[in-house]
């Protein structure tokens, strides 16, 4: 039984008096104006505060178990260490509120606005946050086990070391959220957006991430054992050191992956290597594997009139200026022209994989020179890359990729005697499509 009547509470608040440590259990203060009030350590078990205006109120260590706070305005309120177990906070405004160490076990926060709220070390297990807005909220070390987080907006949320195991995150948006070292074992996360999210060392064992968007996510050293990623988008994801034994990657979308230890894009995995890397068939440290056969030409170096030959399996990175050089690549050799690399009047031949982040200019026009790039297996010009010159494709045709932002003045030709259209139709048949038949 409350020791104060609702009117007495409102009067005290109007006078600016503190109501700390009072017994207000079961009190009805719905729609009351209580902005800036101090209810520190009050017993407010089962209180009805529906629609109450509690902006900037101090509810530190208050007992609000089973309280009804639906639609209340608790913006910037201090709920540090408050007990809100089983409380109803549906559509409550909690923007900027301090809920650090609060107990929200089993609380209903459906549709609540928690943007920018602080929930470090908060206890949220079994809570319902369906559709809540947690943009920019801080939930480091929070316990969100078996939570319902369907459709939650967690963009740029800070969840380092948080526990989300067994939670439902379907169709939630965790774009650019930080989940480093977090526990997400057995989460149901179909359609979850994790674009650009930091997931380093995250535990996603047995997680269902089917159809999830992990574009540019940082999954370095993450555990994905027995996880399901059917149809997930992993383009640009950083995957160095992931453990994915038993994981399902059927139908994933990935134009490329970043397998560099530092997540700096220096080791790109493309096309048919992707599944092999994810499934562990290819060691997750190709940079190290190739280190014995790696050549690096550093910034500031100048090479002129050189003839270079790199055998199969080598990785060559050029950040230097090459002039009038001839480079022969063995099959599968990786040649990366770094963002500071410039190749002037050079020719690259052979069935290597060429990535141009810098600049490539073949010999000036009008001199009847052969093509600057001849017979490459794969040619990628990234957003920072530029290519001026002629490219003669390999007999089996070159695989091309161009990123928006690249600069090209490029003439592509086919190897003499090869008809690209015929080749295209044959490829289509081999791939089981009936594209050529339709035409």
């Amino acid at each position, binding site marked *: 039984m409350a020791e104060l009547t609702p009117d007495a509470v409102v009067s005290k608040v109007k006078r600016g008096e503190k109501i700390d440590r009072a017994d207000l259990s079961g009190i009805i203060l719905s729609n009351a104006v209580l902005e800036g009030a101090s209810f520190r350590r009050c017993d407010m078990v089962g209180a009805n505060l529906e629609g109450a205006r509690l902006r900037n109120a101090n509810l530190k260590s208050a007992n609000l178990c089973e309280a009804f706070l639906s639609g209340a305005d608790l913006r910037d309120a201090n709920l540090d260490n408050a007990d809100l177990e089983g409380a109803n906070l549906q559509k409550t405004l909690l923007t900027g509120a301090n809920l650090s160490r609060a107990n929200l076990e089993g609380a209903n926060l459906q549709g609540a606005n928690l943007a920018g709220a602080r929930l470090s070390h908060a206890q949220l297990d079994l809570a319902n946050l369906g559709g809540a807005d947690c943009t920019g909220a801080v939930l480091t070390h929070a316990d969100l086990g078996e939570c319902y987080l369907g459709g939650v907006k967690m963009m740029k949320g800070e969840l380092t070391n948080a526990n989300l195991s067994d939670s439902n995150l379907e169709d939630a948006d965790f774009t650019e959220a930080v989940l480093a070292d977090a526990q997400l074992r057995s989460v149901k996360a179909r359609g979850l957006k994790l674009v650009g999210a930091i997931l380093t060392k995250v535990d996603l064992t047995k997680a269902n991430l089917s159809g999830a968007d992990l574009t540019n996510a940082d999954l370095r050293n993450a555990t994905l054992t027995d996880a399901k990623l059917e149809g997930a988008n992993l383009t640009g994801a950083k995957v160095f050191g992931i453990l994915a034994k038993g994981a399902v990657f059927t139908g*994933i979308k990935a*134009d*490329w992956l970043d397998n560099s*230890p*530092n997540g700096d894009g220096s080791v790109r995995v*493309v*096309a*048919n290597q*992707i599944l092999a890397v994810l499934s562990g068939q290819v060691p997750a440290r190709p*940079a190290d594997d190739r*280190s014995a056969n*790696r*050549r*690096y030409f*550093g*910034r*500031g*170096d*100048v*090479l*002129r*009139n*050189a003839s270079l030959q790199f055998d199969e399996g080598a990785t060559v*990175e050029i950040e*230097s*200026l090459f002039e009038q050089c001839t480079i022969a690549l063995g099959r599968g050799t990786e040649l990366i022209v770094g963002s*500071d*690399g*410039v190749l002037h009047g050079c020719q690259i031949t052979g069935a290597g994989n060429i990535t141009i982040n810098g*600049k490539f*200019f073949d010999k000036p026009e009008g001199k009847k020179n052969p093509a600057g790039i001849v017979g490459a297996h*794969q040619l990628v010009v990234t957003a920072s890359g*530029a*290519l*001026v010159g002629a490219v003669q494709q390999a007999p089996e*045709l070159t*695989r*091309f*990729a*161009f*990123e*928006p932002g*690249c*600069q*090209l*003045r*490029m*003439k*592509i030709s*086919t190897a003499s005697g090869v008809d*690209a*259209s015929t*080749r*295209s139709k044959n*490829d289509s048949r*081999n*791939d089981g499509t009936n*594209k050529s038949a*339709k*035409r």
Partner: protein
Amino acid sequence: MNELKNPGATEKRTLVEEGTTFKGSLTSTCPILVKGTINGDLEAPSLTVAATGSVSGKVKAGELKSEGELSGEFDVDKVVLSGSVKDNTVIRAKALEVKLSVTGSKMQVVFGEVQLDIGDMPSREKAEPVKTAENGKSVPPPAESA
């Protein structure tokens, strides 16, 4: 050629359906979707060529997305390409996107004899020479953290 409302979108667009061949000049203020064949000049805010479609001729468009067959001269702002680009084709654009195919040996895009003029003309500025390395001699890569 039919002027249809796309059932999946609220925006109207011009559709050249599969099995339809259009010859001549086509100018439209709404986006064009080609599932059939166009031979001739074409001008539109955006042009989408489906996998079954082909466009041959002079094209001016804001955006070009093709999974079909292209040949001729294309002046556009942005191009997203897959499918095939036939011989004697010129593509001029501010931005081009071609992705590497993930699945097996399938080519994302097959180029014939093609000219690509994309973005600004790259400047020929050279890297600042600091020191000269011996021909062919390589230096170790920068240290990588484990």
